[in-house]
């Protein structure tokens, strides 16, 4: 993980703070009280839920009501998360992924951060003990007594949980198992008391089984007796039912015989009527047949007569139609000759238009030819203008350059009036030499003056000691001084003499006092003159260059004028040439335009004639089609008229036959009247005569039926009397009484069996329950056995947990020791190994080939202690945190310069490969190695670099 930005509001000394962090090493640099450590506290509180040095409420800025921390960080999934914590008079803790709220409330926020940053265990402890290395603690953790060290690192390693499980929950679990065991044993005792009844129940079941089999046998005997009685009774009932059946059949047969004799009488009567009808029919058959034949003939003749009458009507309709067609043909012929006239007119007009068009086309071609000529003239003028323009621009540019060269030349020429600088230089050098001499005199005078003042001051200062005769140089009595009389006057005289000398010197100094300043001025002037000489040389060379360039430009100027006049064809002034060209273009353009207008007017006329010709062609085509239509109509009408005339002729031939048909119809009708009576008689009796044979057969079958029924009646009578003799009604009644008595006995026995069965079932259930109880007892015994095993295992687990905790601690220590050694060797360049024993005592061991001597941590030099501690620390961060993130809070306190530098170097080597490390310091020894430096000033003003 790595932090990307932090925002604080009213947190500790920060009223408002915003800062961004980079990948790699970040330095928070500031003096004491600038709020450096507060930033680390804020990270700890918001992200890890810990790391505050006092109560949360005390972290709210003085006189403010609430504090707010907002930290943005990148997690291992590559996404940016933002955690926001508010506390004070309002409280809130939220985690966002982008704008999505993913957790709220301290517990769930911290748990989620634990997961997304790949941390394990209690992350506030990990932050406080592994991620943050606090002031001075870098080496201190490895000093102190074994008990203190053990306590600290057990906390860091977070393995005390194993011991806690063993003594807390695991112990409770074992005691729960023991309680369960006791409870089960009590239950087994209760079950045992219930099982005492089992033998008694078994005996009862056996007795009931015996009783049941006895009762069932008796019941079977009774059932057999009842069955026999019932079967005899059933056979008697069968005979009785048959007697009744015979009686009803006899009655049915008698009724049937009576119906059959009635039918026979009716059929005989009908047969007689049919015989009479047959005689009449035979007599009238001949007349009937003749009549029918005549009737058919009359029908045929009538049909033919009606057809001929229809033909007459059709003939007169066709006549009318023919005269209509003749009128129409006359009208169409007139229309046809009319159309032919119009076609001739159109053809004449078409020829006229064609002649006019070809005249115009010739005119247009001539105009276009002329237009082409004009266009070429125009294009020539335009290209002339373009060429002229290009060269004209070159000409203008050249002119501008000539002007600028002239200006430059003027400026160079002006300088010639300045006074000859070499003469000035000579004068000023003489002046400088003179002034230099004066300066040297001044220095000497000043020295003399200082000597005199010092002598005078010494005399004044040591006046008292001199009075005692003590020499100020030797600091002891001097005979020369001691023996002098009036030493006061002598000294005053000396002082006076010195004062006079001083005054003289001052006068001298005044004369030459301004010599250094003058010298400076002169030197300044000389520099200016030297510059002027240099400038002048430059100008000279510039002047010759300008002259050369001007002559070149003038040559170009002439050439360009020549080129321009060659374009125009005649020599002239440049401006005039330009106007000439413009004029030429204007004229060419006007002519071209006029010519183009003429061409387009001719084209318009041709277009108009073309559209008239087009119209004529369309009109002719249409008229032609109409003419053809008319011709077709005339032909068709003529064909139709001819067809109608031939039909009319055929009809006239047929109509000639009509009078003959009328005569034949009259004759037939007379013959029909003669035979009509015979025809009608035949029709009346023919149906009845047809039924004669049928009636005869009906009579025969009725007679047959009467005979059969009489036979059946006599057979049934015989059977009936036989059955009546066979039925014994007394025996039947006796059987009924016997059946009832046996039935009662059977029912009693059956109830008895059911009751025994019920008792048996209940006894069996009782027995089953007891077996269940036995099973339960066995199950409980097995459970007790299992609990015993579990207790044994749980006790071992408790031991193992303690052992595992210790082994993990050892594992951590080994891994840290191994990794720290690798780093230590790499950085120190030595073969020594770091050792960290079970009391967390650190030592360094020399390689075997150097004797393998061991030095304890306290015996290491200060620098070695820092390096060893950092290596262990880095290994701990790598192995225990998983966050690839480390914080150092004032790591340089109380370190000398050499150790500080070693620390800076080692930090980069050891922690540079983490995602991010933050170093809080007031010492800028780390500045060079940091990817980002954040400087904090006490009044909470931030300045980043």
């Amino acid at each position, binding site marked *: 993980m790595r932090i990307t930005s932090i925002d604080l509001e009213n947190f500790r000394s920060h009223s408002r703070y915003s800062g961004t962090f980079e990948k790699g090493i970040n330095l928070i640099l500031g003096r004491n009280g600038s709020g450096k450590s507060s930033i680390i506290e804020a990270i700890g509180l918001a992200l890890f839920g810990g790391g505050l040095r006092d109560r949360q409420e005390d972290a709210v800025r003085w006189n403010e009501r609430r504090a707010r921390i907002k930290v943005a960080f990148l*997690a291992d*999934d590559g996404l940016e998360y933002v955690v926001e914590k508010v506390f004070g008079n309002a409280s809130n803790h939220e985690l966002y992924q982008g*704008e999505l709220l993913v957790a709220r409330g301290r517990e769930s926020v911290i748990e989620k951060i634990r997961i997304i940053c790949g941390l394990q265990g209690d992350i506030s402890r990990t932050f406080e003990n592994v991620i943050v290395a606090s002031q001075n603690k870098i080496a201190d953790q490895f000093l102190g007594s074994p008990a203190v060290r053990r306590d600290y690192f057990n906390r860091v390693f977070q393995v005390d949980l194993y011991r806690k499980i063993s003594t807390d929950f*695991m112990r409770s*679990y074992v005691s729960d198992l023991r309680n369960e065991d006791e409870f089960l044993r009590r239950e087994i005792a209760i079950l045992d008391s219930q099982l005492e009844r089992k033998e008694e129940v078994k005996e009862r079941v056996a007795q009931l089984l015996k009783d049941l089999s006895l009762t069932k046998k008796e019941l079977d005997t009774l059932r057999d007796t009842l069955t026999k009685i019932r079967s005899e009774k059933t056979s008697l009932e069968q005979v009785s039912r048959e007697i009744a059946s015979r009686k009803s059949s006899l009655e049915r047969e008698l009724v049937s015989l009576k119906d059959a004799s009635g039918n026979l009488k009716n059929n005989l009567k009908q047969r007689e009527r049919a015989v009479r009808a047959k005689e009449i029919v035979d007599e009238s058959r001949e007349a009937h047949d003749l009549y029918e034949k005549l009737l058919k003939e009359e029908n045929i003749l009538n049909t033919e007569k009606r057809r001929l009458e229809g033909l007459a009507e059709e003939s007169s309709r066709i006549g009318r139609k023919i005269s209509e067609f003749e009128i129409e043909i006359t009208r169409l012929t007139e229309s046809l000759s009319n159309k032919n006239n119009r076609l001739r007119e159109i053809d004449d007009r078409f020829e006229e238009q064609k002649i006019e068009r070809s005249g115009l086309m010739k005119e247009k071609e001539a105009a276009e030819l002329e237009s082409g000529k004009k266009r070429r003239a125009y294009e020539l003028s335009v290209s002339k203008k373009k060429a002229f323009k290009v060269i004209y621009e070159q000409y203008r540019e050249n002119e501008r350059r000539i002007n600028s060269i002239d200006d430059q030349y003027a400026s160079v020429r002006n300088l010639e009036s300045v006074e000859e600088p070499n003469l000035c230089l000579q004068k000023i050098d003489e002046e400088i030499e003179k002034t230099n001499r004066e300066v040297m005199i001044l220095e000497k005078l000043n020295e003399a003056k200082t000597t005199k003042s010092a002598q005078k001051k010494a005399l004044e200062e040591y006046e008292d000691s001199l009075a005692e005769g003590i020499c100020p140089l030797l600091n002891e009595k001097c005979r020369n001084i001691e023996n002098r009389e009036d030493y006061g006057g002598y000294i005053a005289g000396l002082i006076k003499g010195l004062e006079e000398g001083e005054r003289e010197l001052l006068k001298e100094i005044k004369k030459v006092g301004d010599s250094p300043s003058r010298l400076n001025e002169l030197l300044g002037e000389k520099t200016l003159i030297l510059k002027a000489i240099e400038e002048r040389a430059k100008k000279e060379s510039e002047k010759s260059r300008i002259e050369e360039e001007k002559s070149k430009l003038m040559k170009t100027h002439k050439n360009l004028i020549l080129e321009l006049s060659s374009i125009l064809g005649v020599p002239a002034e440049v401006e005039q040439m330009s106007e000439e060209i413009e004029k030429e273009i204007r004229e060419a353009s006007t002519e071209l335009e006029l010519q183009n207008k003429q061409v387009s007017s001719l084209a318009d006329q041709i277009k108009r004639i073309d559209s008239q010709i087009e119209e004529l062609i369309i009109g002719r085509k249409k008229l032609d089609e109409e003419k053809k239509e008319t011709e077709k109509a005339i032909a068709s009408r003529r064909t139709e008229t001819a067809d109608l005339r031939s039909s009319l002729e055929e009809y006239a031939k047929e109509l000639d036959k009509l009078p003959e048909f009328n005569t034949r119809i009259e004759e037939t009708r007379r013959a029909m009247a003669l035979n009509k009576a015979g025809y009608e008689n035949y029709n009346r009796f023919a149906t009845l005569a047809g039924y004669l044979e049928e009636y005869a057969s009906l009579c025969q079958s009725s007679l047959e039926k009467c005979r059969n029924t009489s036979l059946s009646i006599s057979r049934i009578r015989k059977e009936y009397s036989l059955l009546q003799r066979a039925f014994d009604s007394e025996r039947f009644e006796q059987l009924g009484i016997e059946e009832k008595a046996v039935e009662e006995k059977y029912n009693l026995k059956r109830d008895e069996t059911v009751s025994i069965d019920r008792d048996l079932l209940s006894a069996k259930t009782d027995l089953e329950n007891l077996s269940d109880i036995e099973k339960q007892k066995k199950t409980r015994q097995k459970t007790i056995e*299992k609990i015993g*095993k579990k207790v044994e295992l749980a006790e071992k687990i408790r031991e193992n947990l303690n052992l*595992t905790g210790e082994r993990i601690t050892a594992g951590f220590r080994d891994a840290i020791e191994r990794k720290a050694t*690798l780093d230590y060797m790499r950085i120190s360049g030595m073969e020594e190994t770091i050792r960290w024993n079970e009391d967390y005592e650190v030592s360094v061991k020399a390689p075997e080939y150097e004797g393998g001597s061991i030095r304890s941590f306290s015996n290491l030099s200060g620098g070695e202690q820092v390096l060893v501690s950092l290596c262990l620390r880095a290994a701990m961060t790598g192995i225990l945190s998983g966050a690839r993130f480390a914080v150092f809070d004032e790591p340089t306190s109380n370190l000398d310069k050499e150790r500080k530098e070693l620390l800076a170097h080692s930090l980069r080597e050891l922690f540079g490969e983490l995602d991010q490390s933050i170093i809080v310091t007031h010492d800028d020894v780390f500045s060079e190695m940091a990817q980002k430096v954040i400087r904090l000033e006490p009044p909470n003003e931030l300045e980043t670099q």
Partner: protein
Amino acid sequence: MNSESELADLKFLHCSDIHLGRRPIGSPNSPYSSTRYEDYFDAFEFVVDWALAHKIDAFFVTGDLFDKREINPDTLARTQSILSRLRDCGIRVIAIEGNHDKSFNVNESWLRFLHETAYLELLSPVQGGNDIIFPYVEISGFKVYGLGYPGFLAAEMISKVASVLSGRNNIVLVHTAPGNDSFIPGLVTPEALNVLRSKVVYAGGGHLHSQFAFPANDPFFFVPGSLEYWDVWENDRKGFYVFNTEKEAADFHNSRRRERQEFSVHVNEGEGLSDFIEDHEIHHGAIVLVTVSGSGDFNVDQGGLEREIESGGALKAFVKVRRTDRDITLDDYKSMSARDIEREVIMSSKEWKEIGAKGEELVAIIEKMKHFQEEGRYDLFKDSVDSFLESITGDVS
């Protein structure tokens, strides 16, 4: 007739991890870099051509359309040009962000820009009051939801979206894939994915660069893989899926990508690889990958061989040397984590083995014991330890 059977017969194309704008690391102005930059666009063009030729109904991109959050103007312009071909044919493009192109700020998202300029429709969850809201688009009766790249919150997001889905005519797009791999952050466990099974007709994943369908029998979650090799050593199937709503089946199609030749050679002690070029046919323009294995003292000039293969016509060559005579030692693992150490101690413990407890099961139960002890949940602690002891002692009859 129910509403499900009234739905039209539609075809949805699903691709992912296109990584437009990607350049290989190192030498940004080399011909190799420029060619590979083009390769990613070519692969995308190929899929768009396919979509247009087969008249698909909608085009899904499940993350990492771009290789980076910040893209250059050329990448943007070319992406717009390709997407506009789909837009002009009325094919809707539904996209989500991946871990490569997910912006940390809405105003700086290029995908959001493409959404606002109507080149595609971007779907991502938004915060609404106390709950997360999942916006969706509707295509002929199918609701399409987009979850973006949820990172470590993948399981949580999937469970949340599952709780708001109704019916089965839903499609969920998410930049994650099934897996338990702690080396690739942002994957999701198969169990967590299963909550979607009865609630979607199709779920489109991404993030992994190899084709994958989950579960193997009757899959509903499909990862098409990247279109081009993001890393040249990737060697699994890559392409795109086409889901047919009537058949409820997804067909996989291979993508078009740069040719890649992979060779393994063994070198004996004292030998070199001077004959490699003569013995192997190198294709013009291909990326050539060579793994050299050997033991003892053998001599392979990796850089020299790479240059030789490239002068033989390959676009680029990579030579990897693997020694077979050296076991990986503890020193190779620069930092074993606390968790690794804890696991190793527990799994190698003699005492635990003596009571019949070992392996992952033991690690898991100890983890649970620690967790419940810390949480103060004796009830859960007791249940876990009890069932663990049951498993050791055998079932109670």
